[in-house]
């Protein structure tokens, strides 16, 4: 197994290398550059041209690519053209925000989806089941920004139960108890929005797995041995039904850093999804390329993690 994992890591190197060439060239194809947004009657076009030259944007593409790769291997991802801070610290800040939000969201998703999926599967065709299925369809059909806006409006502005934007209150000094509470308090509404919408897949998988499992021979065996239905569900069916969800887990973990553009925009929450789209709009090359490399790496890592997790929970699967 360790050998396989090591091999998978080695394969990642050429994969990421190809990805790096693609994104670098594609980024160059985009019209405009980080300085094209500076056009105003007050700016001197010659100065903008000088800044382009200083930033090395007039060098041939292969020179730029080489500089970028060499710097990246030394852990230097360059500075953001927009924010004028190092890309690493920018992604560090935003990534941390997104990480907290995603962790809470994923936790809430499982908290909602697993019981609902189990109930729907166990009481198939009952009113409970139908209500849950209806909920999962509706939540699947509602666009994120619609529910986000409704939640902000109702819970944020009308009822004023939650803060409506940002990650923390500027009145709280770092390190105090109020400061940490303020962070959690700001997370709740966006996380709930995400969780309400993100449950469909898990509910549906779990439900159909449980329905299938009920008809399996090992369930019949267990029943014929006289084991009570409750125990059959908790011991036999539940564990087996979780397999497809476990298969997702790797991607879920690495996907925590992806962020959600809509949620972050509506809740004014500076995270990775927003950073990614904004950097594309502003042609902030250094941020775009670093983020795509990061996402590429995380996706590859996620698929590896999923395989490993699956081999742990499902004894039939072994990584050779």
């Amino acid at each position, binding site marked *: 197994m360790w050998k396989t994992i090591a091999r998978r890591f080695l394969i990642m190197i050429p994969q990421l290398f190809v990805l790096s060439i693609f994104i670098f060239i594609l980024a160059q194809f985009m019209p405009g550059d980080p300085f094209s947004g500076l056009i105003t009657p007050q700016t001197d076009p010659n100065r903008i041209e000088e800044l382009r030259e200083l930033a090395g944007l007039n060098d041939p593409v292969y020179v730029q690519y080489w500089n970028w790769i060499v710097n990246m291997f030394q852990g230097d991802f360059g500075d953001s053209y927009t924010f004028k801070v190092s890309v690493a610290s920018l992604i560090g800040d935003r990534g941390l925000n997104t990480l907290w939000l995603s962790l809470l969201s994923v936790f809430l998703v499982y908290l909602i989806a697993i019981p609902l999926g189990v109930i729907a599967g166990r009481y198939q065709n009952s009113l409970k089941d139908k209500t849950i299925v209806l909920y999962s369809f509706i939540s699947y059909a509602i666009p994120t920004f619609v529910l986000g806006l409704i939640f902000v409006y109702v819970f944020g502005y009308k009822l004023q139960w939650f803060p*409506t934007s940002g990650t923390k209150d500027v009145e709280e000094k770092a390190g105090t108890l109020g400061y940490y509470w303020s962070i959690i308090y700001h997370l709740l509404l966006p996380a709930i929005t995400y969780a309400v919408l993100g449950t469909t897949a898990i509910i549906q998988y779990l439900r159909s797995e449980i329905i299938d499992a009920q008809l399996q021979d090992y369930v019949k065996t267990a029943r014929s041995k006289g084991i009570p239905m409750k125990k059959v569900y908790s011991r036999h069916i539940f564990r087996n039904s979780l397999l497809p969800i476990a298969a997702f887990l790797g991607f879920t973990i690495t996907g925590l850093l992806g962020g959600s553009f809509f949620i972050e925009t509506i809740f004014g929450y500076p995270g990775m999804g927003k950073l990614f789209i904004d950097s594309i709009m502003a042609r902030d090359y250094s941020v775009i390329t670093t983020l795509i490399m990061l996402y590429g790496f995380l996706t590859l890592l996620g698929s590896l993690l999923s395989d490993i997790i699956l081999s742990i929970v499902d004894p039939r699967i072994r990584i050779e």
Partner: protein
Amino acid sequence: MKKKKWLLLSLVCVLMLALAACGGSDSKDKSKGEDTKKEKVDTSKLPFEAKNDGDSIEGGTLKVGLVTDSPFQGIFNWELYEDGNDKDILDYASNSIFDTKEDFLIADTGLGQLKVDEDANKATVTIKKDVKWSDGKPFTIDDVIYPYYIIADKDYTGVRYDADFQNIVGAKEYHDGKAKEISGIKKVDDYTMEISFKKVSPAIYSGGDGLWGYAAPKHQLKDIKIKDLIKSDAVRKNPVTVGAFVIDNIVKGESVKFKANPNYFKGKPKLDSVVVEVVPSSSSAAAIKAGKYDVVKNYPANDYSAIKDASNTTILGRPELAYSYVGFKLGKYDTKEGVSVMNDTAKMNNVNLRKAVAYAMDIEQVSDVYYEGLRTRANSLIPPVFSSFYDDSLEGYKYDPKQAKKLLEEAGYKDTNNDGYVEDPDGKEFSIKLAAMSGSDKDEKIIQFYIQNWKDVGLKVELSTGRLIEFNSFYDKVQADDKDIDMFMAAWGTGTNPSPVGLYGKEAQFNFSRFVSDDLTKLLSDIDSKEAMDSEYRGKAFRAWQEYMSEQATTIPMYFRTEIIPVNKRVKNYNIDYLNETELQDLELVADEPVK
């Protein structure tokens, strides 16, 4: 079973209704706008000032909402910031030296005073004595000189080291490392400095010619290398200021808390603190109605109708320093020579054709229907706020389809094959390619409206790429004189220096229409000439240029815009008149929380 189905169905119906109701008000408004004419807002009636009675409370916190969908950059230094959001925040801790009067010209009432010796090409800046920085250190002329050394430094990567700045004697030599000091900048005593320029023009009174209008705390910044400055705490976290408020705490990209500066030279502010917070545009209207903020900046004028009935808010309005325009491509920019060159055979190189295009556009109706009167038809390329430069006698191109048809006919554009569109004087099929920027869904409708306008007079106008163009691509194409662009719609913010040389001059890269003529060159140089130091002369020069541009019709002014600022009824006094703005130290509140 049947019953259950009904139950489900009715549940779905209820949910759908609920959803529809949530988005309802918006869609209703839109359909109204298309069918009937919306009630026009008389923007001249939007007040400059909000006044609320009541006893003012002791201290208090002013809550400011800053509408933007992106986190702010957080570069809190006047020499280095680039983004408008950073400036809006920084205004509470302003290091501005000069006050301004009519037409945004430098006045004598500020922290510093400007004296210009035109014949010697010199300016003298004198500052008030006994002023202190927010940390208690004395404010001296060194703090006024230091910004020049920041901008001229070889490691400075901002946009402000420009042609204007190099007008200071010795700035370029210092930047290139050939001199240890900027020879044109002399410290006379602790409160006086002298700047020598290569040339002095009237623009110096608008902060042009290289004059820098802000101070920088030298005692805080002097030990930081210029290349490290932009990432330093002195810029990002705790900048010292001579302004009314000083930064107390920052949540990166989201909010800034200011506290009153006890050393402020106009007196300690009455408020205890100011909190500026980013508000997403999607919920800014709801935030105003819920009383989350006292003042909202950058509120989208498009969403005026969402707040116009809010009982807790007064909506203030003032003209923006900007205009929108239609430009015609008449040539190319010669990058080698650095000048615009006109193309005699350009499609739009016919003044009557250009005028016909302009007369055919019903700009007034678009302003009323789509912008609710918050934009008005512009008659000139100088916004009216610049009262002594603006030409109010110009009629511009008011909607007149008959005139448009007549002009087309005179120019030889006739419909010879009866397809509803005119052919060019040679009898060939004729169509104009228009480039326009994409933005809201409104933009699409407006462009279609104008295309219909042009069709009505027989002009076939098509979009350059078949659709609206994203901002970056748009300017890429316009700047590169793309062959698929015959005309384009864009806008300029004029800033406080309305001198048009940088936008219409022969050498100007931003002269996107590439129109040049000897008359134009003369008119432009007249505006910034020595004679124009006399304000009456300069006003005349400005008007002569505006009349000439109107006559040539190479750039057609479209709209002037109104900026709106919603103010909660808890703010005692808030005036946004450019000439009479409420000063920060005088702001007061009449309740503990914003009115809901």
